[in-house]
């Protein structure tokens, strides 16, 4: 489901924190001069190898199988044991959101219509057992990722864009080599060609998904493959106790000569699963753990403790994510079908209250438009400026008058009952909108069916006057398509529910989306995303709330620590440790 998309947080102003942080580098046991310096957003720069990095996850992994995983922390981590065709560069800040070839020699070569994409594999890449990797292993990996019965968690981009011609799964494939999919050609062992049914200029973003990492057909055990994924990266699985923990060791068949992107430092990696999140926060501070792998930041209890203590605070990074917490303004519900009434909501809303609901400045930055600043090419603008972002009653009343509702109106505001922050948002909006006469009836609905049966089901939302819907959206990857497509495309709205676009209905926006899909020039494409952003804001379909941030704690023994815009958390490929 969409709600699983946990893109979490990205780089940001670390400069002041970084200055304060350098002093803490030596407490990890090693007093070498290797640790302790911060360069270009990287804390504790070091190339010292060895040691063990200990991760903990407050929940279970959706799956370690590269075909079946859909969390950004998992995609970040998967680069340690799998090599997809393309990957996000292991670099701090904006550079981390750029794509570099990994298993392939170069980025994809599109045909003129952006419907055919060709990759050439590097020479000499091997599986952990020494078998050479061929383009057929990549094709097989993509084929199996199409099977959503066996792998329900993974993304469906290949299902949606490849010219499948009825192909469903290699497990139901009559081809003896299980390579019956016609949408992918492998003319030789190093070349792979993807045929799409519609143009898509950003195909390299698909190619960076773990599902393009090669899988040997002989070792594939379907849904049990996650028990032992065959590695192509610098680490391979040592032990794997599903639901509890797993460990990784160095992969002897990974060759640095084939891999310009990775510099693996630790000798071992240990991951504990299903650990209480408050426990994780405490153990990070006591030095008993190195990384909270989900990368969403410390919990509210630990946040209070960390922010109140200057020493602890110095060891934190604030990561802004490609996630927008927003409130949809539903044009199906009268009188919000009138643009002036929608604009009145934009002007009346007190965004400082929105920010408080999400934990203040630590929880996020006040958003004035859709695209989060970490998305390449994003522009920050404010179509409805108000003093101090606290709302402008005069302008709101003026819009109300133009709308023909000078005394305001009454409508509902829905939120997900299990989310205290969304409840606080609804109550804060209720307060600030009441000042101009817009009365909100607060209506909680269960999280699990919020999009399917309630706010995301057009006839339900209309019948129950859900004029405002509190929601949030994160990009699958930092790119305008990954962020906007499911949020503003009116053709994605289904009457049966399950929508993530709650009411943006503008044919011009749809046309711009189509144009972006065929624009292979990156700069020109990024410009279109910004234009869409502006148009949606002009239409006043969405009340942006905040761009989410996470407060990440960084134990002093970790080296090469930086936040990458690619995943908006620490880059797990680069981490080292001084603790032996």
């Amino acid at each position, binding site marked *: 489901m969409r709600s699983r998309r946990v893109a979490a947080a990205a780089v940001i102003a670390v400069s002041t924190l970084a200055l304060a942080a350098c002093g803490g580098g030596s407490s990890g046991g090693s007093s070498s001069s290797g640790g302790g310096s911060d360069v270009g957003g990287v804390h504790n720069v070091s190339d010292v190898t060895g040691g063990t990095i200990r991760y903990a996850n407050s929940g279970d992994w959706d799956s370690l199988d590269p075909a079946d995983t859909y969390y950004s922390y998992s995609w970040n981590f998967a680069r340690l044991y799998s090599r997809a065709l393309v990957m996000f560069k292991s670099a701090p800040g904006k550079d981390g959101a750029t794509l570099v070839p990994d298993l392939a020699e170069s980025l994809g070569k599109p045909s003129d219509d952006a419907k055919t994409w060709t990759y050439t594999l590097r020479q000499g890449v091997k599986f952990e057992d020494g078998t050479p990797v061929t383009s057929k292993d990549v094709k097989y990996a993509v084929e199996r990722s199409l099977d959503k019965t066996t792998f329900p968690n993974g993304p469906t981009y290949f299902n949606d864009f490849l010219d499948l011609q009825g192909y469903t799964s290699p497990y139901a494939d009559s081809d003896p080599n299980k390579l019956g999919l016609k949408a992918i050609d492998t003319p030789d062992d190093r070349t792979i060609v993807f045929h799409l049914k519609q143009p898509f200029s950003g195909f390299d973003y698909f190619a960076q998904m773990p599902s393009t990492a090669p899988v040997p057909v002989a070792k594939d055990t379907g849904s049990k493959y996650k028990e032992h994924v065959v590695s192509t990266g610098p680490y391979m699985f040592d032990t794997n106790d599903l639901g509890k923990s797993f460990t990784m060791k160095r992969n002897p068949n990974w060759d640095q000569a084939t891999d310009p992107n990775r510099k693996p430092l630790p000798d071992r990696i240990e991951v504990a699963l299903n650990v209480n999140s408050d426990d994780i926060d405490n153990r990070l501070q006591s030095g008993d753990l190195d990384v909270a792998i989900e990368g969403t930041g410390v919990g*509210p209890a630990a946040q209070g403790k960390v922010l*109140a203590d200057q020493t602890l605070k110095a060891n934190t990074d604030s990561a802004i994510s490609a996630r927008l917490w927003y409130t949809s303004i539903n044009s199906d519900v009268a009188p919000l079908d009138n643009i002036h009434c929608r604009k009145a909501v934009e002007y009346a809303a007190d965004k400082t209250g929105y920010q408080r609901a999400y934990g203040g400045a630590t929880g996020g930055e006040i958003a004035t438009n859709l695209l989060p600043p970490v998305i390449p090419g994003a522009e920050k603008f404010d179509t409805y400026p108000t003093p101090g972002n606290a709302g402008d009653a005069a302008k709101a009343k003026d819009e109300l008058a133009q709308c023909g509702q000078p005394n305001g109106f009454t409508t509902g505001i829905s939120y997900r009952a299990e989310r205290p922050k969304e*409840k606080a948002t609804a109550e804060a909006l*209720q307060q600030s909108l009441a000042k101009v006469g817009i009365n909100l009836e607060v209506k909680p609905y269960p999280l699990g069916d919020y999009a399917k049966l309630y706010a995301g089901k057009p006839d339900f939302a209309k019948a*129950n006057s859900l004029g405002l819907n509190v929601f949030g959206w994160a990009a699958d990857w930092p790119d305008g398509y990954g962020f906007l497509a499911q949020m503003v495309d009116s053709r994605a709205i289904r009457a049966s529910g399950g929508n993530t676009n709650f009411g943006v209905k503008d044919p011009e926006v749809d046309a711009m989306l189509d144009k972006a899909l065929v624009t292979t020039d990156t700069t020109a494409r990024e410009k279109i995303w910004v234009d869409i952003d502006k148009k949606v804001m002009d239409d006043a379909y969405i009340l942006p709330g905040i761009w989410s941030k996470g407060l990440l704690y960084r134990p002093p023994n970790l080296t090469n620590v930086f936040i990458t815009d690619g995943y908006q958390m620490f880059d797990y490929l680069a981490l080292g440790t001084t603790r032996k």
Partner: protein
Amino acid sequence: MTAPSDVPGSAVHAEPEAVTVGMGTTIQGRSLGAIAWRRLRRDRVALGGAAVIVLLVLVAIFAPLIVALLGHPPLDFHYEKIDPDLQVANGPFGGISHDFLFGVEPVNGRDIFSRVVYGSRISLLIAFLATLLAVLIGAVLGVVAGYFGGWVDTLISRTMDVFLAFPILLFALALAGIIPDKAFGLEGDALRIALIVVIIGFSSWPYIGRIIRGQTLSLREREFVDAARSLGARSPRILFTEMMPNLVAPILVYATLLIPTNILFEAALSFLGVGIRPPTPSWGGMLSDATHWFQIAPNFMLFPGLAIFVTVLAFNLFGDGLRDALDPRSR
């Protein structure tokens, strides 16, 4: 010889008179109620409970006045009282001061005192109404089942079994989720209150119903019922004039003991998010919100929790005392 009659011990023959003399010249015939009242008056714990209940009812009735004097409107935000970084109150103890007696709520700075005071209205209103509903259904069906027996009894008793076996909390969660915003001519808080009252009332009537049925079973074999019947009284008269007065005591006792259960039920529903809707304050709802903050703002959880605790304890103590007073054998 001295005559035996000189012996003062002639009381052996005079015992009945002696009693009369000893008690004074007038015999006070006391009604059952008066006897119970005497017993209750001597039970200080029960009286303490009753005093707290009276106080709580007064607080609920005069909530606007109390809040006007000692607090702030329960829905008003006080951002200036909140630390913008931590989202909890400025200063120690969750912002407790002479101005905010119980401190302020995290994030929005609402006055916890006012919200607890207003929350008493919802809690008590729902608990009283739900108990009333449960008693009405339970008493009527219990008497009918016990008095008529036969297939009527079987039908009603099995219905009670079904209700007792029903996973009522899950049912309440499901029902509260699907009920529309306007139904039965009600909307908003009134509809939610009515819905919760019906859910709680319908789930707790069998407890009273069973007890009343049992009492009725034994009462209908008693002589005064036979007497009434032989004088030609019809069933309704026997039921409501002869037997009901004898059932008032157990009904009263179990109603008093049902109220705290219903307060907890309402709190549980609000805690699970299907009770009264925000921003209207309710104790259970406040507790639910406070679970995310109890480590850094314990006062947010403490005060609504204390309110529930004190209320439930007071009703239980009073109910126990009432039972002892009305039916000492049950001690």
